């Protein structure tokens, strides 16, 4: 009799813990990605708004943050699209190097015009095995509307890296891929044409 009651309690307990386990696990998985985006944004804001350091120091810090927070290889490979397969080892190597230089340059210029905005991470969801989409909002200093910025964060080898930034529904990676595809196609389908452009940028 007590054994039976014990079994019932056990089953009920198991059921409930089963019900609770799911959302807690999902929340845990996105919590890491959310904290990662939040931490990166706060660090960036800290030194972007720091008036005590020079412009060059700020750029240097920002470039370092970009290199450690973004998975440039994955972004670069995505941006090359179908032409990744069509290119050889040497081309890929040079492309990835040039791509990283370009992205770091573009982003540090973009955030160089920082005017005191704040970033608020509001939600996150899992997307596939490895990715989380973290939704944040950039809040303006004065009047004006907030802008939605989604970050695709991929977990690889226990580390989080950003692989896409989606501003108001427009993905940086998708835009870049479309841009590169057009450059290559108009250049007669040669990856070399893109490399030449990247070299001269």
């Amino acid at each position, binding site marked *: 009799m007590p054994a039976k009651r014990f079994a019932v309690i056990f089953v009920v307990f198991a059921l409930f813990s089963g019900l609770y386990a799911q959302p807690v696990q999902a929340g845990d998985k996105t919590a890491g990605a959310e904290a990662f985006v939040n931490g990166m944004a706060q660090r960036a804001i800290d030194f972007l708004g720091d008036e005590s350091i020079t412009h060059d120091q700020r750029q240097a810090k920002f470039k370092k943050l970009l290199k450690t927070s973004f998975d440039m290889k*994955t972004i670069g490979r995505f941006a090359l699209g179908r032409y990744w397969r069509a290119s050889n080892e040497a081309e890929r190597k040079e492309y990835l190097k040039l791509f990283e230089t370009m992205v770091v340059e573009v982003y540090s210029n973009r955030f160089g015009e920082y005017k005191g905005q704040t970033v608020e991470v509001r939600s996150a*969801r899992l*997307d596939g095995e490895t990715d989380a989409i973290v939704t944040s909002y950039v809040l303006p200093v004065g*009047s004006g509307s907030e802008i939605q910025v989604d970050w*695709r964060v991929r977990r690889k080898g226990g580390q989080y890296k950003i692989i896409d930034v989606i501003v108001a*529904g427009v993905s940086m990676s998708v835009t*870049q*891929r479309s841009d590169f*595809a*057009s450059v290559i196609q108009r250049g007669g389908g040669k990856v070399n044409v893109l490399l030449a452009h990247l070299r001269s940028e």
Partner: protein
Amino acid sequence: MFNNKAVAVLADGKTSMILVMSVLACLFLVSCSSTSKDPIMAGDIIINDPLENHNRRVFAFNAAVDDAVIHPIVEGYRAVVPSPGRTGVRNFLRNLKSPVTLANQVLQGDLPGAKDVVLRAVINSLVGLGGLFDVAGAEGIEYEAEDFGQTLAVWGVDHGPYMVVPFLGPSSLRDYAGYAVDSFADPVRWYLHNIDEEPLYYTKVGLEYLDLRESLMDVLKDLESSSIDYYAAVRATYYQRRDALVRDEDTDSAPAFPSYDDF
């Protein structure tokens, strides 16, 4: 910068526009899908740009006009009217657009959205001093941009060919037709026409254009400096942004990203 060449491009644009429009209409009717071997994509949308050479010429013309005329005007606007004032202008224009927005919400079958439009118009007109202040937005009833191009998309109409419209910029046959329908059906236009206040209507159109260009200037400059093929980057951005608007900016869709396991 605004020299004979630019004017020639404009004249060329004008005469060829009629021709182009009729060609476009034919393309649209037979739902021409220019299936090239490897289409250029914007996420999972196949870009359909059969008039690319023509579009690139109009694009270059628009870029020249932006540099020579539009951006200096926007900079002047920013210098004269501080940010809260510009926000007021935007709120006021959005409020004036309420009838068109409402009609499109209803046509899309988005009844909660339609309710929000009505609430926003009433609250902002009465409490927000005729729409200058977005009181409803501050209370959580956010503005949602709707137009007939989006309505057509909800009804299942594809973009049709991509078009770059002189002075207006990137569009598609569907969205440009939608824009024409919205402008024509706008009750504010009919009202101002009936009371013989056309100049007021053109003032409104001018302000809308100024507001639009002000909101786009920084984005476009950024895109130009961060892209190799500016035309292609604007095109990809246009498709993605329109797609986000059609989905009412729900956050549940982000472009897919392969795992690259071999990397």
